[in-house]
Protein backbone atom coordinates (compact mmCIF):
# COMPACT_ATOMS: atom_id res chain seq x y z
CA UNK A 1 0.00 0.00 0.00
CA UNK A 2 2.85 2.43 0.84
CA UNK A 3 4.30 1.67 -2.54
CA UNK A 4 0.99 2.56 -4.19
CA UNK A 5 0.58 5.77 -2.28
CA UNK A 6 4.10 6.69 -3.21
CA UNK A 7 3.26 6.12 -6.87
CA UNK A 8 0.16 8.25 -6.43
CA UNK A 9 2.08 11.16 -4.91
CA UNK A 10 4.75 10.84 -7.58
CA UNK A 11 2.06 10.97 -10.27
CA UNK A 12 0.41 13.96 -8.62
CA UNK A 13 3.76 15.77 -8.59
CA UNK A 14 4.22 15.24 -12.31
CA UNK A 15 0.61 16.14 -13.04
CA UNK A 16 0.69 19.37 -11.04
CA UNK A 17 3.96 20.61 -12.47
CA UNK A 18 2.91 19.74 -16.01
CA UNK A 19 -0.40 21.55 -15.50
CA UNK A 20 1.47 24.70 -14.43
CA UNK A 21 3.76 24.48 -17.44
CA UNK A 22 0.67 23.99 -19.61
CA UNK A 23 -1.05 27.08 -18.23
CA UNK A 24 2.08 29.19 -18.75
CA UNK A 25 2.71 27.99 -22.29
CA UNK A 26 -0.87 27.90 -23.49
CA UNK A 27 -1.67 31.30 -21.98
CA UNK A 28 0.67 32.75 -24.59
CA UNK A 29 -1.16 31.31 -27.57
CA UNK A 30 -3.05 34.17 -29.29
CA UNK A 31 -6.77 33.79 -29.94
CA UNK A 32 -5.86 33.82 -33.64
CA UNK A 33 -4.47 30.29 -33.23
CA UNK A 34 -6.98 28.82 -30.82
CA UNK A 35 -8.46 26.36 -33.32
CA UNK A 36 -5.04 24.99 -34.36
CA UNK A 37 -4.19 24.83 -30.65
CA UNK A 38 -7.22 22.63 -30.00
CA UNK A 39 -6.34 20.40 -32.93
CA UNK A 40 -2.73 20.12 -31.76
CA UNK A 41 -3.58 19.30 -28.14
CA UNK A 42 -6.01 16.76 -29.52
CA UNK A 43 -3.23 15.08 -31.42
CA UNK A 44 -0.95 15.23 -28.39
CA UNK A 45 -3.56 13.72 -26.09
CA UNK A 46 -3.68 10.85 -28.57
CA UNK A 47 -0.63 9.78 -26.54
CA UNK A 48 -3.06 7.34 -24.93
CA UNK A 49 -1.90 5.39 -27.98
CA UNK A 50 1.03 4.13 -25.91
CA UNK A 51 -1.36 2.63 -23.37
CA UNK A 52 -3.52 1.17 -26.13
CA UNK A 53 -0.50 -0.43 -27.80
CA UNK A 54 0.32 -2.38 -24.67
CA UNK A 55 -3.31 -3.46 -24.29
CA UNK A 56 -3.46 -4.62 -27.91
CA UNK A 57 -0.07 -6.27 -28.20
CA UNK A 58 0.56 -8.05 -24.90
CA UNK A 59 -1.46 -11.24 -25.47
CA UNK A 60 -3.71 -10.55 -22.52
CA UNK A 61 -6.71 -12.51 -23.71
CA UNK A 62 -9.29 -11.87 -26.41
CA UNK A 63 -11.20 -9.15 -24.50
CA UNK A 64 -8.13 -7.04 -23.78
CA UNK A 65 -6.81 -7.55 -27.32
CA UNK A 66 -10.11 -6.57 -28.92
CA UNK A 67 -10.60 -3.50 -26.74
CA UNK A 68 -6.95 -2.57 -27.13
CA UNK A 69 -7.09 -2.82 -30.91
CA UNK A 70 -10.12 -0.51 -31.11
CA UNK A 71 -8.33 1.87 -28.73
CA UNK A 72 -5.21 1.81 -30.91
CA UNK A 73 -7.32 2.65 -33.97
CA UNK A 74 -9.12 5.50 -32.19
CA UNK A 75 -5.92 6.95 -30.74
CA UNK A 76 -3.98 6.72 -34.02
CA UNK A 77 -6.87 8.41 -35.78
CA UNK A 78 -6.50 11.31 -33.34
CA UNK A 79 -2.72 11.44 -33.49
CA UNK A 80 -2.26 11.26 -37.24
CA UNK A 81 -5.45 13.10 -38.15
CA UNK A 82 -4.77 15.75 -35.51
CA UNK A 83 -1.30 16.53 -36.80
CA UNK A 84 -2.43 16.53 -40.43
CA UNK A 85 -5.26 18.96 -39.79
CA UNK A 86 -3.20 21.22 -37.52
CA UNK A 87 -0.62 21.60 -40.23
CA UNK A 88 -3.29 22.07 -42.87
CA UNK A 89 -4.71 24.96 -40.86
CA UNK A 90 -1.38 26.53 -39.99
CA UNK A 91 -0.33 26.51 -43.63
CA UNK A 92 -3.23 28.87 -44.36
CA UNK A 93 -2.17 31.58 -41.92
CA UNK A 94 -0.28 34.12 -43.99
CA UNK A 95 0.95 37.62 -43.45
CA UNK A 96 -0.04 40.41 -45.82
CA UNK A 97 2.46 40.37 -48.68
CA UNK A 98 5.04 43.10 -48.16
CA UNK A 99 3.84 43.86 -44.63
CA UNK A 100 6.53 45.03 -42.28
CA UNK A 101 7.37 42.77 -39.38
Amino acid at each position, binding site marked *: *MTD*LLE*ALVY*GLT*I*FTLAAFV*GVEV*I*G*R*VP*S*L*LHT*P*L*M*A*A*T*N*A*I*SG*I*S*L*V*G*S*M*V*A*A*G*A*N*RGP*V*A*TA*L*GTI*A*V*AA*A*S*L*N*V*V*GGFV*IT*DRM*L*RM*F*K*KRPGAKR
Partner: protein
Amino acid sequence: MNAELVVRLAYLAASVLFVIALRGLAAPQTARRGVVYAELGMALAVAGTLLRREIVSYGFLLAGAFAGAAAGTLISLRIPMTRMPERIAFSHAFGGLAVALVGLAEHSHRVRDGPPMNGVELAAAGLEVTLGAVTFSGSLVAFGKLGELLPSRPIALRGQNVVNGLLAAAALALVVVPVAHPEASAAIYAAAAVALVLGVSLVLPIGGADMPVVICVLNAYAGLAAAATGFALRNDVLIVCGALDGASGLLLGRAMSRAMNRSFSNVLFGAFGAVDARAPEAAPPPTVASVEDAAVVLSAARTLVVVPGYGLAVSQAQHALRDLATALAAGGCTVRYAVHPVAGRMPGHMNVLLAEANVPYDELFDLDAINADFASTDVALVVGANDVVNPAARTDPASPIYGMPILAADAARTCIVLKRSLAPGFAGIDNALFTRPGTLLVLGDAKKTLGALAAAVKAG
Protein backbone atom coordinates in the same frame (compact mmCIF):
# COMPACT_ATOMS: atom_id res chain seq x y z
CA MET B 1 21.21 -0.02 -19.67
CA ASN B 2 17.96 -1.87 -19.37
CA ALA B 3 15.10 -1.44 -21.83
CA GLU B 4 12.74 -0.10 -19.21
CA LEU B 5 15.00 2.89 -18.59
CA VAL B 6 15.36 3.60 -22.30
CA VAL B 7 11.58 3.62 -22.62
CA ARG B 8 11.20 6.06 -19.75
CA LEU B 9 13.85 8.36 -21.17
CA ALA B 10 12.06 8.29 -24.52
CA TYR B 11 8.86 9.32 -22.72
CA LEU B 12 10.69 12.15 -20.98
CA ALA B 13 12.08 13.43 -24.28
CA ALA B 14 8.60 13.20 -25.81
CA SER B 15 7.12 15.25 -22.95
CA VAL B 16 9.71 17.98 -23.44
CA LEU B 17 9.09 18.05 -27.19
CA PHE B 18 5.35 18.47 -26.61
CA VAL B 19 5.92 21.49 -24.38
CA ILE B 20 8.27 23.02 -26.95
CA ALA B 21 5.63 22.37 -29.61
CA LEU B 22 2.94 24.20 -27.64
CA ARG B 23 5.33 27.08 -27.06
CA GLY B 24 5.70 27.36 -30.83
CA LEU B 25 1.98 28.05 -31.13
CA ALA B 26 2.53 31.46 -29.51
CA ALA B 27 3.04 32.96 -32.98
CA PRO B 28 1.97 31.99 -36.50
CA GLN B 29 5.59 32.17 -37.71
CA THR B 30 6.77 29.45 -35.32
CA ALA B 31 3.61 27.35 -35.13
CA ARG B 32 4.35 24.96 -37.98
CA ARG B 33 7.80 24.20 -36.63
CA GLY B 34 6.11 23.50 -33.30
CA VAL B 35 3.93 20.86 -34.90
CA VAL B 36 7.04 19.14 -36.24
CA TYR B 37 8.41 18.95 -32.68
CA ALA B 38 5.15 17.42 -31.49
CA GLU B 39 5.29 14.85 -34.29
CA LEU B 40 8.84 13.97 -33.31
CA GLY B 41 7.77 13.60 -29.70
CA MET B 42 4.95 11.28 -30.67
CA ALA B 43 7.24 9.19 -32.87
CA LEU B 44 9.69 8.84 -29.97
CA ALA B 45 6.95 7.82 -27.56
CA VAL B 46 5.61 5.20 -29.97
CA ALA B 47 9.08 3.86 -30.77
CA GLY B 48 9.86 3.64 -27.06
CA THR B 49 6.63 1.76 -26.43
CA LEU B 50 7.45 -0.78 -29.14
CA LEU B 51 10.60 -1.60 -27.15
CA ARG B 52 8.56 -2.58 -24.12
CA ARG B 53 8.82 -6.26 -23.42
CA GLU B 54 5.10 -6.65 -22.65
CA ILE B 55 4.39 -6.21 -26.33
CA VAL B 56 4.75 -9.63 -27.89
CA SER B 57 2.41 -9.66 -30.86
CA TYR B 58 2.12 -6.96 -33.47
CA GLY B 59 -0.69 -8.09 -35.76
CA PHE B 60 -3.69 -6.48 -34.11
CA LEU B 61 -1.65 -3.52 -32.97
CA LEU B 62 -0.46 -2.68 -36.48
CA ALA B 63 -3.87 -3.35 -38.03
CA GLY B 64 -5.52 -0.93 -35.60
CA ALA B 65 -2.81 1.68 -36.06
CA PHE B 66 -2.97 1.58 -39.85
CA ALA B 67 -6.75 1.70 -39.92
CA GLY B 68 -6.81 4.67 -37.54
CA ALA B 69 -4.00 6.53 -39.26
CA ALA B 70 -5.54 6.05 -42.71
CA ALA B 71 -8.99 7.17 -41.58
CA GLY B 72 -7.53 10.13 -39.68
CA THR B 73 -5.49 11.30 -42.64
CA LEU B 74 -8.38 10.96 -45.05
CA ILE B 75 -10.83 12.83 -42.84
CA SER B 76 -8.35 15.57 -42.00
CA LEU B 77 -7.39 16.21 -45.61
CA ARG B 78 -10.94 16.32 -46.87
CA ILE B 79 -13.03 18.01 -44.23
CA PRO B 80 -13.96 21.59 -45.10
CA MET B 81 -12.73 24.27 -42.71
CA THR B 82 -16.31 25.33 -41.98
CA ARG B 83 -16.84 21.97 -40.28
CA MET B 84 -13.82 22.22 -38.02
CA PRO B 85 -15.88 22.34 -34.79
CA GLU B 86 -17.45 18.99 -35.67
CA ARG B 87 -14.06 17.57 -36.50
CA ILE B 88 -12.72 18.62 -33.10
CA ALA B 89 -15.76 17.27 -31.22
CA PHE B 90 -15.43 14.01 -33.13
CA SER B 91 -11.79 13.59 -32.12
CA HIS B 92 -12.61 14.35 -28.49
CA ALA B 93 -15.07 11.45 -28.73
CA PHE B 94 -12.37 9.16 -30.08
CA GLY B 95 -9.91 10.31 -27.43
CA GLY B 96 -12.44 9.49 -24.71
CA LEU B 97 -13.21 6.14 -26.32
CA ALA B 98 -9.55 5.12 -26.49
CA VAL B 99 -8.98 6.00 -22.86
CA ALA B 100 -12.09 4.20 -21.61
CA LEU B 101 -11.21 1.06 -23.59
CA VAL B 102 -7.63 1.03 -22.30
CA GLY B 103 -9.02 1.09 -18.76
CA LEU B 104 -11.46 -1.75 -19.45
CA ALA B 105 -8.76 -3.78 -21.21
CA GLU B 106 -6.41 -3.40 -18.26
CA HIS B 107 -9.20 -4.44 -15.92
CA SER B 108 -10.05 -7.53 -17.94
CA HIS B 109 -6.36 -8.48 -18.15
CA ARG B 110 -5.92 -8.26 -14.39
CA VAL B 111 -9.08 -10.24 -13.73
CA ARG B 112 -7.92 -12.94 -16.14
CA ASP B 113 -4.18 -13.09 -15.48
CA GLY B 114 -3.90 -11.59 -12.00
CA PRO B 115 -2.78 -10.23 -9.68
CA PRO B 116 -6.20 -8.63 -9.09
CA MET B 117 -6.25 -4.84 -8.96
CA ASN B 118 -6.13 -3.35 -5.51
CA GLY B 119 -8.22 -0.40 -4.29
CA VAL B 120 -6.07 2.47 -5.53
CA GLU B 121 -5.58 0.89 -8.95
CA LEU B 122 -9.30 0.27 -9.23
CA ALA B 123 -10.06 3.88 -8.36
CA ALA B 124 -7.62 5.18 -10.98
CA ALA B 125 -8.96 2.79 -13.62
CA GLY B 126 -12.55 3.62 -12.65
CA LEU B 127 -11.89 7.35 -12.92
CA GLU B 128 -10.21 6.83 -16.26
CA VAL B 129 -13.09 4.78 -17.65
CA THR B 130 -15.72 7.17 -16.27
CA LEU B 131 -14.06 10.32 -17.63
CA GLY B 132 -13.40 8.60 -20.94
CA ALA B 133 -17.01 7.48 -21.27
CA VAL B 134 -18.43 10.92 -20.37
CA THR B 135 -16.11 12.52 -22.91
CA PHE B 136 -17.08 9.97 -25.54
CA SER B 137 -20.85 10.25 -25.33
CA GLY B 138 -20.83 13.99 -24.55
CA SER B 139 -18.64 14.68 -27.56
CA LEU B 140 -20.83 12.56 -29.80
CA VAL B 141 -23.84 14.68 -28.78
CA ALA B 142 -21.81 17.86 -29.37
CA PHE B 143 -20.80 16.45 -32.76
CA GLY B 144 -24.45 15.78 -33.58
CA LYS B 145 -25.50 19.27 -32.56
CA LEU B 146 -22.72 20.95 -34.50
CA GLY B 147 -23.45 18.89 -37.59
CA GLU B 148 -27.17 19.58 -37.27
CA LEU B 149 -27.86 15.87 -36.92
CA LEU B 150 -29.46 16.84 -33.62
CA PRO B 151 -31.38 20.04 -32.98
CA SER B 152 -28.85 22.61 -31.80
CA ARG B 153 -31.33 24.30 -29.45
CA PRO B 154 -31.10 23.28 -25.79
CA ILE B 155 -33.04 20.12 -24.98
CA ALA B 156 -33.71 20.18 -21.26
CA LEU B 157 -35.95 18.21 -18.97
CA ARG B 158 -37.41 19.71 -15.87
CA GLY B 159 -34.95 18.93 -13.09
CA GLN B 160 -32.18 18.12 -15.56
CA ASN B 161 -29.52 19.34 -13.15
CA VAL B 162 -30.85 17.09 -10.39
CA VAL B 163 -30.80 14.11 -12.74
CA ASN B 164 -27.24 14.94 -13.80
CA GLY B 165 -26.18 15.35 -10.19
CA LEU B 166 -27.61 11.94 -9.34
CA LEU B 167 -25.93 10.33 -12.35
CA ALA B 168 -22.58 11.87 -11.42
CA ALA B 169 -22.98 10.73 -7.81
CA ALA B 170 -23.85 7.22 -8.99
CA ALA B 171 -20.80 7.07 -11.26
CA LEU B 172 -18.58 8.34 -8.48
CA ALA B 173 -19.99 5.78 -6.04
CA LEU B 174 -19.31 3.00 -8.54
CA VAL B 175 -15.71 4.22 -8.79
CA VAL B 176 -15.20 4.58 -5.04
CA VAL B 177 -16.95 1.45 -3.72
CA PRO B 178 -14.36 -0.99 -5.17
CA VAL B 179 -11.64 0.85 -3.23
CA ALA B 180 -12.97 -0.73 -0.06
CA HIS B 181 -14.32 -3.83 -1.82
CA PRO B 182 -11.84 -4.82 -4.54
CA GLU B 183 -13.84 -8.02 -5.18
CA ALA B 184 -16.65 -5.84 -6.60
CA SER B 185 -14.37 -4.68 -9.40
CA ALA B 186 -16.98 -5.37 -12.08
CA ALA B 187 -18.56 -2.12 -10.89
CA ILE B 188 -16.26 -0.49 -13.44
CA TYR B 189 -18.61 -1.63 -16.22
CA ALA B 190 -21.59 -0.13 -14.43
CA ALA B 191 -19.62 3.09 -13.93
CA ALA B 192 -18.90 3.18 -17.66
CA ALA B 193 -22.58 2.70 -18.50
CA VAL B 194 -23.72 5.44 -16.10
CA ALA B 195 -21.02 7.75 -17.45
CA LEU B 196 -22.23 7.22 -21.02
CA VAL B 197 -25.73 8.34 -20.02
CA LEU B 198 -24.30 11.25 -18.04
CA GLY B 199 -22.33 12.52 -21.04
CA VAL B 200 -25.46 12.66 -23.17
CA SER B 201 -27.49 14.25 -20.44
CA LEU B 202 -24.83 16.89 -19.75
CA VAL B 203 -24.52 18.15 -23.31
CA LEU B 204 -28.11 17.86 -24.59
CA PRO B 205 -29.33 20.88 -22.57
CA ILE B 206 -26.62 23.17 -23.94
CA GLY B 207 -27.51 25.38 -26.88
CA GLY B 208 -25.53 25.81 -30.08
CA ALA B 209 -24.31 29.30 -29.20
CA ASP B 210 -22.64 27.90 -26.08
CA MET B 211 -20.78 25.23 -28.02
CA PRO B 212 -17.43 27.07 -27.82
CA VAL B 213 -17.41 26.52 -24.06
CA VAL B 214 -18.65 22.93 -24.29
CA ILE B 215 -15.95 21.98 -26.77
CA CYS B 216 -13.33 23.39 -24.41
CA VAL B 217 -14.77 21.55 -21.42
CA LEU B 218 -14.84 18.27 -23.36
CA ASN B 219 -11.24 18.97 -24.34
CA ALA B 220 -10.37 19.33 -20.65
CA TYR B 221 -12.23 16.09 -19.81
CA ALA B 222 -10.33 14.26 -22.54
CA GLY B 223 -7.10 15.55 -21.01
CA LEU B 224 -8.04 14.55 -17.49
CA ALA B 225 -9.08 11.11 -18.72
CA ALA B 226 -5.66 10.68 -20.35
CA ALA B 227 -3.98 11.78 -17.13
CA ALA B 228 -6.05 9.26 -15.15
CA THR B 229 -4.81 6.59 -17.57
CA GLY B 230 -1.28 7.69 -16.71
CA PHE B 231 -2.05 7.19 -13.02
CA ALA B 232 -3.59 3.77 -13.64
CA LEU B 233 -0.74 2.55 -15.86
CA ARG B 234 1.98 4.50 -14.00
CA ASN B 235 2.97 6.15 -17.23
CA ASP B 236 4.61 9.58 -16.95
CA VAL B 237 4.15 10.79 -20.50
CA LEU B 238 0.41 10.11 -20.29
CA ILE B 239 0.19 12.17 -17.11
CA VAL B 240 2.13 15.05 -18.67
CA CYS B 241 0.08 15.09 -21.89
CA GLY B 242 -3.16 14.76 -19.97
CA ALA B 243 -2.20 17.71 -17.79
CA LEU B 244 -1.23 19.83 -20.82
CA ASP B 245 -4.46 18.98 -22.62
CA GLY B 246 -6.55 19.56 -19.52
CA ALA B 247 -4.90 22.92 -18.89
CA SER B 248 -5.52 23.94 -22.48
CA GLY B 249 -9.20 23.02 -22.33
CA LEU B 250 -9.74 24.84 -19.06
CA LEU B 251 -7.89 27.99 -20.16
CA LEU B 252 -9.79 28.18 -23.44
CA GLY B 253 -13.09 27.46 -21.71
CA ARG B 254 -12.44 30.23 -19.23
CA ALA B 255 -11.59 32.66 -22.04
CA MET B 256 -14.83 31.72 -23.82
CA SER B 257 -16.94 32.09 -20.68
CA ARG B 258 -15.42 35.48 -20.00
CA ALA B 259 -16.19 36.57 -23.53
CA MET B 260 -19.82 35.85 -22.72
CA ASN B 261 -19.64 37.35 -19.23
CA ARG B 262 -20.86 34.09 -17.77
CA SER B 263 -19.49 31.54 -15.40
CA PHE B 264 -18.56 28.02 -16.39
CA SER B 265 -21.36 26.61 -14.31
CA ASN B 266 -23.92 28.95 -15.82
CA VAL B 267 -22.99 27.77 -19.31
CA LEU B 268 -22.94 24.12 -18.35
CA PHE B 269 -26.02 24.00 -16.19
CA GLY B 270 -28.02 27.04 -17.27
CA ALA B 271 -29.74 25.64 -20.41
CA PHE B 272 -29.19 29.12 -21.82
CA GLY B 273 -31.58 30.25 -24.50
CA ALA B 274 -34.15 27.58 -23.71
CA VAL B 275 -36.73 30.24 -23.05
CA ASP B 276 -36.82 33.96 -23.37
CA ALA B 277 -39.85 34.71 -21.27
CA ARG B 278 -39.80 38.46 -21.77
CA ALA B 279 -42.44 39.90 -24.02
CA PRO B 280 -40.81 41.32 -27.12
CA GLU B 281 -40.77 45.09 -26.98
CA ALA B 282 -42.31 46.96 -29.84
CA ALA B 283 -39.21 47.65 -31.90
CA PRO B 284 -39.19 50.07 -34.79
CA PRO B 285 -39.15 48.31 -38.16
CA PRO B 286 -35.65 47.77 -39.54
CA THR B 287 -34.42 49.46 -42.69
CA VAL B 288 -34.19 46.75 -45.31
CA ALA B 289 -31.87 47.74 -48.14
CA SER B 290 -31.27 46.27 -51.57
CA VAL B 291 -27.91 44.92 -52.65
CA GLU B 292 -27.51 47.95 -54.94
CA ASP B 293 -28.04 50.43 -52.11
CA ALA B 294 -25.62 48.57 -49.86
CA ALA B 295 -23.03 48.45 -52.66
CA VAL B 296 -23.23 52.23 -53.06
CA VAL B 297 -22.62 52.72 -49.34
CA LEU B 298 -19.74 50.23 -49.37
CA SER B 299 -18.12 51.81 -52.42
CA ALA B 300 -18.12 55.19 -50.70
CA ALA B 301 -16.48 53.86 -47.52
CA ARG B 302 -12.86 54.69 -46.81
CA THR B 303 -12.68 52.41 -43.78
CA LEU B 304 -14.52 49.14 -43.30
CA VAL B 305 -14.56 46.73 -40.41
CA VAL B 306 -16.05 43.30 -41.08
CA VAL B 307 -17.67 41.46 -38.16
CA PRO B 308 -17.97 37.76 -39.06
CA GLY B 309 -20.20 35.36 -37.14
CA TYR B 310 -21.45 31.80 -37.29
CA GLY B 311 -23.64 32.68 -40.29
CA LEU B 312 -20.45 33.11 -42.31
CA ALA B 313 -19.55 29.49 -41.61
CA VAL B 314 -23.08 28.22 -42.24
CA SER B 315 -23.28 29.72 -45.70
CA GLN B 316 -19.56 29.05 -46.38
CA ALA B 317 -19.24 32.65 -47.42
CA GLN B 318 -15.61 33.26 -46.45
CA HIS B 319 -14.32 33.28 -50.04
CA ALA B 320 -17.14 35.55 -51.23
CA LEU B 321 -16.36 37.88 -48.35
CA ARG B 322 -12.71 37.96 -49.31
CA ASP B 323 -13.67 38.79 -52.92
CA LEU B 324 -15.73 41.74 -51.78
CA ALA B 325 -12.95 42.93 -49.46
CA THR B 326 -10.42 42.71 -52.29
CA ALA B 327 -12.68 44.72 -54.59
CA LEU B 328 -13.18 47.39 -51.94
CA ALA B 329 -9.47 47.50 -51.09
CA ALA B 330 -8.71 47.99 -54.78
CA GLY B 331 -10.85 51.11 -54.59
CA GLY B 332 -8.76 52.45 -51.72
CA CYS B 333 -10.82 51.27 -48.75
CA THR B 334 -9.00 50.01 -45.66
CA VAL B 335 -10.55 46.67 -44.72
CA ARG B 336 -10.09 45.05 -41.34
CA TYR B 337 -11.81 42.19 -39.53
CA ALA B 338 -13.06 42.20 -35.95
CA VAL B 339 -13.19 38.72 -34.45
CA HIS B 340 -15.11 38.17 -31.22
CA PRO B 341 -13.79 35.28 -29.10
CA VAL B 342 -17.12 33.45 -29.23
CA ALA B 343 -17.99 34.18 -32.84
CA GLY B 344 -18.66 30.81 -34.41
CA ARG B 345 -18.85 27.48 -32.66
CA MET B 346 -15.35 27.03 -31.27
CA PRO B 347 -12.39 29.14 -30.19
CA GLY B 348 -10.66 30.64 -33.21
CA HIS B 349 -13.29 29.35 -35.67
CA MET B 350 -13.54 32.63 -37.63
CA ASN B 351 -9.77 33.09 -37.82
CA VAL B 352 -9.36 29.73 -39.51
CA LEU B 353 -12.15 30.41 -42.00
CA LEU B 354 -10.72 33.79 -42.93
CA ALA B 355 -7.23 32.36 -43.17
CA GLU B 356 -8.60 29.74 -45.54
CA ALA B 357 -9.97 32.53 -47.73
CA ASN B 358 -6.46 34.05 -47.81
CA VAL B 359 -7.19 36.94 -45.51
CA PRO B 360 -3.77 37.86 -44.08
CA TYR B 361 -3.76 37.41 -40.32
CA ASP B 362 -2.52 40.94 -39.71
CA GLU B 363 -5.93 42.16 -40.88
CA LEU B 364 -7.66 40.16 -38.12
CA PHE B 365 -8.17 41.94 -34.81
CA ASP B 366 -9.63 40.75 -31.56
CA LEU B 367 -12.13 42.58 -29.43
CA ASP B 368 -9.78 44.74 -27.38
CA ALA B 369 -7.57 45.62 -30.31
CA ILE B 370 -10.29 47.06 -32.50
CA ASN B 371 -13.25 48.13 -30.41
CA ALA B 372 -12.09 51.74 -29.98
CA ASP B 373 -11.74 52.10 -33.76
CA PHE B 374 -15.39 51.53 -34.65
CA ALA B 375 -16.22 55.16 -33.83
CA SER B 376 -13.93 56.33 -36.62
CA THR B 377 -15.07 53.65 -39.07
CA ASP B 378 -17.27 54.46 -42.07
CA VAL B 379 -18.98 51.09 -42.38
CA ALA B 380 -19.23 48.06 -40.13
CA LEU B 381 -20.24 45.01 -42.19
CA VAL B 382 -21.84 42.36 -39.97
CA VAL B 383 -21.92 38.97 -41.67
CA GLY B 384 -24.01 36.38 -39.88
CA ALA B 385 -23.18 37.67 -36.40
CA ASN B 386 -25.80 38.63 -33.85
CA ASP B 387 -25.23 38.36 -30.12
CA VAL B 388 -21.62 39.54 -30.35
CA VAL B 389 -22.81 42.93 -31.68
CA ASN B 390 -26.00 43.27 -29.62
CA PRO B 391 -25.96 46.62 -27.78
CA ALA B 392 -28.37 45.16 -25.20
CA ALA B 393 -25.28 43.62 -23.63
CA ARG B 394 -24.26 47.16 -22.64
CA THR B 395 -27.60 48.85 -22.06
CA ASP B 396 -30.25 46.39 -20.92
CA PRO B 397 -29.67 44.86 -17.48
CA ALA B 398 -32.64 42.56 -18.05
CA SER B 399 -31.12 41.00 -21.15
CA PRO B 400 -29.74 37.46 -20.81
CA ILE B 401 -26.51 38.64 -22.42
CA TYR B 402 -26.14 41.77 -20.29
CA GLY B 403 -22.50 42.42 -19.41
CA MET B 404 -21.07 40.39 -22.27
CA PRO B 405 -18.25 42.32 -23.95
CA ILE B 406 -19.45 43.09 -27.47
CA LEU B 407 -18.01 44.52 -30.65
CA ALA B 408 -19.10 48.15 -30.93
CA ALA B 409 -20.42 47.86 -34.48
CA ASP B 410 -23.16 50.31 -33.50
CA ALA B 411 -20.52 53.03 -33.13
CA ALA B 412 -19.67 52.92 -36.83
CA ARG B 413 -21.18 55.60 -39.03
CA THR B 414 -23.18 53.04 -41.01
CA CYS B 415 -23.77 49.45 -40.21
CA ILE B 416 -24.64 46.93 -42.91
CA VAL B 417 -26.01 43.68 -41.57
CA LEU B 418 -26.24 40.58 -43.74
CA LYS B 419 -28.90 38.32 -42.33
CA ARG B 420 -30.76 35.27 -43.53
CA SER B 421 -34.19 36.56 -42.54
CA LEU B 422 -35.94 38.86 -40.13
CA ALA B 423 -36.26 36.04 -37.60
CA PRO B 424 -34.61 36.70 -34.24
CA GLY B 425 -31.06 35.48 -33.65
CA PHE B 426 -29.87 32.22 -32.27
CA ALA B 427 -30.51 32.92 -28.62
CA GLY B 428 -33.89 34.41 -29.50
CA ILE B 429 -32.88 37.83 -28.24
CA ASP B 430 -33.94 41.02 -30.00
CA ASN B 431 -31.05 43.04 -31.37
CA ALA B 432 -31.46 46.81 -31.31
CA LEU B 433 -28.51 47.19 -33.68
CA PHE B 434 -30.65 45.82 -36.49
CA THR B 435 -33.44 48.34 -36.00
CA ARG B 436 -31.52 51.50 -35.12
CA PRO B 437 -31.27 54.35 -37.61
CA GLY B 438 -28.09 54.04 -39.65
CA THR B 439 -28.28 50.28 -39.98
CA LEU B 440 -29.08 48.74 -43.34
CA LEU B 441 -30.33 45.18 -43.32
CA VAL B 442 -29.63 43.11 -46.43
CA LEU B 443 -31.62 39.88 -46.33
CA GLY B 444 -30.65 36.61 -47.93
CA ASP B 445 -27.96 33.94 -47.95
CA ALA B 446 -24.67 35.59 -46.99
CA LYS B 447 -22.67 33.94 -49.76
CA LYS B 448 -25.08 35.05 -52.50
CA THR B 449 -25.41 38.54 -51.05
CA LEU B 450 -21.66 38.97 -50.77
CA GLY B 451 -21.21 37.74 -54.33
CA ALA B 452 -23.79 40.21 -55.60
CA LEU B 453 -22.23 43.02 -53.56
CA ALA B 454 -18.78 42.26 -54.97
CA ALA B 455 -20.16 42.26 -58.52
CA ALA B 456 -21.95 45.57 -57.92
CA VAL B 457 -18.85 47.17 -56.38
CA LYS B 458 -16.65 46.03 -59.27
CA ALA B 459 -19.21 47.26 -61.84
CA GLY B 460 -19.66 50.59 -60.07
